[in-house]
């Protein structure tokens, strides 16, 4: 049975996804609050997997929480911490508990996080994890052994449209589709002309594209991302616009910009939907959607 998210992707409606950031610790109140706030507004919620290699409540646990509260989870899975045995096992657990969307990622280096001396795994990469999902769906494990009960997933991956050089990224993007990706969430896009150029290429493939929207909260944050986040390029005009916000009004300005970009993507039919990343500010996602005219 296709997941609710898969149905939304296939319905040709403008799809909106957001994120739930697992807690540092077992107090899940904030996560539950965000889930309750967003579950009826977005088509699905990504649950991040030790984002930036910072140890947190597991994505599988977060996805179960989304499910328990009536939301539609997208399980983010990186190859950083688990080998092929553990990844396959967690996919079986997820599917058996009604978590039927998975985003397959390679994962950040352990060195970027808060356990810098941990052993990194990377037994598989993102395209091989996608292939593993499809293998399990055929009722076999990666070694070809029969499974008693298979899995069912709407599987996706990511792409960085602003990467430099771009062609190696696009080769990987095509491999991910070949390995079974049905949807692609992009790294944050800010320059719509560049993004349209990327979509001219990407729309040739049989895959749904959700544009990554990262909420800007200050001009400093935009400059920080330009300097430190691979493949993120906030144009100077947007940085200036953020800087022009009155004191205390930067968040409001960021919401306005995010809303404006989403509205443009939707109105011009640039891609199939958006993935909103309001890092640490999940409670304003409804405001972003309102600014975009989506609610």
């Amino acid at each position, binding site marked *: 049975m296709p997941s609710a998210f898969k149905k939304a992707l296939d319905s040709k409606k403008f799809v909106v996804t957001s994120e739930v950031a697992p807690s540092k610790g077992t107090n899940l109140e904030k996560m539950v609050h965000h889930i309750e706030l967003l579950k009826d507004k977005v088509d699905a919620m990504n649950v991040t997997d030790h984002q930036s290699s910072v140890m947190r409540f597991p994505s599988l646990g977060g996805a179960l929480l989304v499910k328990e509260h009536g939301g539609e989870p997208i399980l983010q899975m990186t190859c950083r911490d688990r080998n*092929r045995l553990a990844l396959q096992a967690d996919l079986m657990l997820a599917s058996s508990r009604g978590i039927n969307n998975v985003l397959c*990622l*390679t*994962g*950040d*280096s352990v*060195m*970027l996080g808060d356990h810098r001396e941990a052993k*990194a795994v*990377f*037994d*598989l*990469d*993102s*395209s*091989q994890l996608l*292939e*593993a999902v499809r293998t399990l769906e055929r009722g076999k494990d*990666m070694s070809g052994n029969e499974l008693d009960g298979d899995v069912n997933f709407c599987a996706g991956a*990511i*792409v*960085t449209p602003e*990467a*430099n*050089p771009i*062609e*190696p*990224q696009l*080769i*990987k993007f*095509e*491999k991910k589709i*070949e*390995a079974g990706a049905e949807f692609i969430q992009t*790294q944050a896009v800010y320059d719509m002309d560049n993004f349209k150029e990327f979509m001219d290429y990407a729309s040739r493939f049989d895959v749904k594209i959700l544009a990554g929207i990262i909420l800007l909260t200050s001009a400093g944050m935009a400059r920080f991302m330009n300097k430190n986040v*691979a*493949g993120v390029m906030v144009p100077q005009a947007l940085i200036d616009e953020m800087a022009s916000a009155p004191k205390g009004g930067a968040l409001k300005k960021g919401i306005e910009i995010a809303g404006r970009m989403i509205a443009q993507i939707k109105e011009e039919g640039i891609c199939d939907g958006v993935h909103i990343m309001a890092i640490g500010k999940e409670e304003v996602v409804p405001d972003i959607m309102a600014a975009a005219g989506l609610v």
Partner: protein
Amino acid sequence: MIRSITQQKPMEEIEHLLEGMDRIFVIGCGTCTTLTRTGGVEQVAEMSEKLSSKGKVITGTTVVPVACDNLTSDILSEFGPRMNQADALLVMSCAFGVQTIASQLCQMVVPAQNTMFIGKENAAGRFSEICTQCGTCVIGETGGICPVTACHKGLVNGPCGGTNNGKCEIDDNKDCAWTMIYNRLKELDRLDIMRTYKKPRNQLGEPKPGSFQLPPD
């Protein structure tokens, strides 16, 4: 030529390893650690001075030509009495040399170095790790550049999302292996190989610990 690349351990760690051992014999190596300036004649003299200033008694020092050679014990035999007086041998070679000496002499050995990788000198004084001896060589499909070694994550299907302007997400001084492979294959007009999906690797080409017996003639 391949070289063992070492870095001296912090002095505090060396002192900790030598705790309770007052008489020390210091051994350097005339090959790799001389080249990397971590265990040659000068560094052995410096280390002996430092240890003396911390109250250790240096019973003797030497720099053997090739510490990892099985003849090292013969060369060291002329220092027998001085070494026997020592509570420990502080070895300023790579771990190959330390283990060779440890296996040949019945004495406590303490390494002064961390062995970082087996590398190749690309430019004067600059060393790179280009092979990790994985036992399942993939470089026939990558234009002769090893992604298992040169990519921080050992990826075989192309770059991760952390690559930035041809550099690795962990260090601006490290090249992105997949940018290098892409450039090489493009130059060779063989990007078709990069476009081909690679199955998960056999991570146990030669299960640790590696072992090999030459077949009899």
